[in-house]
């Protein structure tokens, strides 16, 4: 069973987000919602109930005027690998509704299996998961723009960023039709990566030395969120600001950052 896929090179899709470039505009959030049929309500100001697979956080250095500094941090699902695919959310799901795909490293969410116990939400240290407290409602006529490649979710299930998995499937189909070639870097890009007007997000196979993310993740200023929890996330960040790198993990005041 275990070595079933051993004849294939395993991929490990991931992101490197350059926080020096991110301006906090929110295009990635909107692109994700538009791509993945994420609904909206008349009032979305209760952020605990607002579904945004991608969410841009605003960090501050805590200093007073004029020493204040801010940094924006886009947070999709981190697609944690944990140790050998034991991501926090996957290990607690009683319904196997969320799973770690060893071929791509993508943590999936299967809505029709999810029965809404929300253990995964409690387990995810990144608040990357969202619960559908309400039925999604699109005003009359607006359901026209729904993307047929992503199924809209119903009340009572958990959802989260899928690394736009449907785009991976489409890329594989295309590659198959075009003569069973391997899919290339440009064939599979997530909606947020593509939309970011600042070019802050880079997406690709972290295992593939040809892909841009492979090099970028080795940047001296690269780090991951809450790394020390052992979640082994696949989203890397780059920031030239020390205070930002510190804010990314639970550092003690005098502790040094970095490896």
């Amino acid at each position, binding site marked *: 069973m275990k070595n079933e896929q051993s004849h294939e090179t395993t991929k490990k899709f991931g992101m490197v987000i350059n926080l020096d470039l991110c301006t906090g505009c929110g295009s990635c959030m909107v692109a994700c919602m538009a791509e993945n049929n994420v609904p909206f309500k008349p009032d979305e100001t209760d952020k605990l109930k607002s579904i945004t697979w991608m969410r841009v956080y605003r960090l501050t250095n805590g200093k007073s005027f004029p020493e204040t500094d801010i940094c924006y941090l886009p947070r999709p699902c981190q697609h944690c690998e944990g140790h050998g695919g034991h991501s926090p959310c996957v290990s607690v799901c009683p319904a196997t509704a969320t799973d770690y795909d060893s071929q791509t490293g993508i943590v999936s969410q299967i809505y029709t299996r999810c029965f809404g116990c929300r253990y995964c939400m409690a387990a995810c240290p990144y608040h990357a998961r969202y619960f559908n407290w309400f*039925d999604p409602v699109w005003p009359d006529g607006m359901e026209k723009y729904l993307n047929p490649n992503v199924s809209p979710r119903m009340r009572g299930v958990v959802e989260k960023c899928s690394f736009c998995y449907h785009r991976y499937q489409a890329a594989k189909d295309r590659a198959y039709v075009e003569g069973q070639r391997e899919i290339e870097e440009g064939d599979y890009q997530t909606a947020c990566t593509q*939309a970011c007007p600042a070019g802050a997000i880079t997406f690709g196979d972290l295992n593939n030395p040809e892909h841009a993310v492979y090099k970028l993740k080795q940047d001296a200023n690269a780090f991951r969120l809450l790394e020390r929890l052992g979640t082994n996330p696949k989203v890397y960040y780059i920031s030239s600001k020390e205070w930002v790198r510190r804010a990314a993990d639970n550092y003690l005041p005098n502790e040094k950052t970095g490896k």
Partner: protein
Amino acid sequence: MKIDRRCFLSLAIGAGAGIALSPLPWKLTDDLAIWTQNWQWTPVPKRGAAKTVNSVCTLCPGGCGISVRKIDDRAVKIEGMETHPVNRGGICTLGLCGLQLLYGPTRVKGPLKRVADRGKGQWMPITWDQAIREVTEKLSAIRKSGRPQSVATMSGASSATLDALLDRFGQAYGTPNTIRFPSVDDAYHLSVSLMSGGKARVAFDFEHAGYVLSFGAGLLDGWGSPVRMFKANALWKQSGVKLVQVEPRLSRTAAKADTWISIVPGSETALALAMAHVIISESLYQAEFVESCSEGMEGFKEFVAAKYTPDIAAKMTGVDAATITMLAREFAKSKRPIAVCGRGQGTIPGSMDMFMATQVLNALVGNLNQPGGVWFVTDQTMQEWPEVEPDAAAKAGLAYPRLDGAKGMVPLKRSLPNQFVQAVASGKDYPIEALLVIESNPLYTLNDTALVKQAFSKIPFIVSFSSFMDDTAAYADMILPNPVYLERMEDVIGASGFPYPTIGLSQPVVKPQCNTRHVGDVLIQLAKGLGDTMARAFAWKDFSACLEASLGDRFKTLKKSVFQVDKSYQPPAPNEIFASERFSFIPRGIQADVAFKPIAAEGDTGGYPLMLMAYDTMRLSNGYIGNPPFLTKILEDTVLKNQDCLIEINPKSAKAAGLDEGDRAEIQTPKGKALVRIHLDDGIMPGIVAIPRGLGHEAYDVYLAGKGINVNSLVGSLSDPISGFEAAWGIRAKLSKA
């Protein structure tokens, strides 16, 4: 057997354990989950044939190319067009929301006629025939009675051809009151004509700049062509180009800048002039340009030496003298430095002193019309149409002065909606009897909303051509809805701030979703109905024919290619452009202290200890286009909470006023008051409070109406003494606990 309490309990527990161990509850939970998941009201999007249609986005003056993904006849996603030179595949937040505008609940589905009192929201659907007939009758009656000048148009249309068509309508009908909404582009344009007599669109070769100094321009908050600016910033970061942001608030631009200089608002000109003083007195200026291309340097030198030394400016700006000197040296010694201004997104033109001071800095470093500098761009032009032959009625109407007071001072079509509104409200000169509102929402976007409303209440007949039930449409007598940008064909000439001449033709991506007609088509039909010279001036079959007439051969190619860009464009060299008329450090005919005099904010410091500023953000659309649901969804809860608007204030100032995070408070300005909530933020200068533009709509739908407050209703209007443009950048205010 007697069942006692203990026995009952153990039985109950036993039964409970039995049920829990049996698969029954789990099976039932699972079934319940599956059942709820099969509720048929969760839509299942239909599959179909996929294709992509390219077009040009006209939601802002940025002129980006878009690629719209379609499934059969449905548009399902808008993405940036990879090959478009302006946005190169990127797209902004608003552009991504376009389909929510197209399919949204706030669209006007067909022509409407008001049945109850104005603004009461009671409408009767009418046919297009009736709508056009009634408007024609009205316009015909006014013209016949000899008052064509009392018909006005207010337009925010991005289409150059539509703009020309509206001018032509005014010419043939006989009204001088064709009002457009000016922006920083117009203020820049005017600065060029005042300082060098030229006629050009001002653009910035940011991609090749070596240093960027911005006086409050929200370069990363939606200024110019937003996506292009984001990409330029990424380039600066990667190649170590320094960005300095001068602004009282830690905006997104300030946060991304290498240096943020917080400054007393309204004193930016003083900083620029003091920098000029340092550059001149330390001989850091580009002697060659100054000697061969400019004049007035001596007078200017004396002026700044007397009034704007770093020490004097430090007192006005709150920036210390050493920093000013350092900044001046850094700017002048950098390769290809650019100074830029135009507050926020630059939708309000602002006062001329700032623009002229900025151009002075660019001239001192000789970075006009150079690679990596400020360019005077001549865009592609439209083909000439046959001259209008105004009849006697039209001639008489055109002899009246424009109500906004703008007249041939500069070689520029200048409009002053702010002054137009004042004239109408005060009943000065002559009344306006009919107003046609095109692609704009003046009742919301203009400062001093109460005055605009007062002016509009005096106009007996208001026709809105809006696609949406916006604040102005809701107050109109008739709505003749225009198709939205994804359903119509229009030309866009030039992209704001972009240095290469571009021309785009937006394409109908989907067929019209509502019973709409293009405003160009309606104008042609109205003209035909009015007959005689009007009909002759509008001999085209429809707007598409009109587009063809203005684009000529380019029409057919543009239909396929969507855009054309002249990437080989070079602006005329300085010694060429300034040969006939030199760059003048002090605009000719204007005294230096008049030219560079900053506009003071309205209100006295005693009664109003704080300063209120409006700010722009990428997450709020603040012009004609109202915020689509996705954009409102991503607004931070520190900006909007439930229906309340949060006002940004420095913790120190809040403490002084006895206010804390989340408190309800009343903000009062000389123009009005409103209820807000407090948000403490260290990224804003003490003494200043800030509210974003784009909230507080009365009209639209449940996703936007009634959320927050409209900051424009709290800020009065101030006209720049030189240009007449709206120059108010804030207003004095006070906060009290509510």
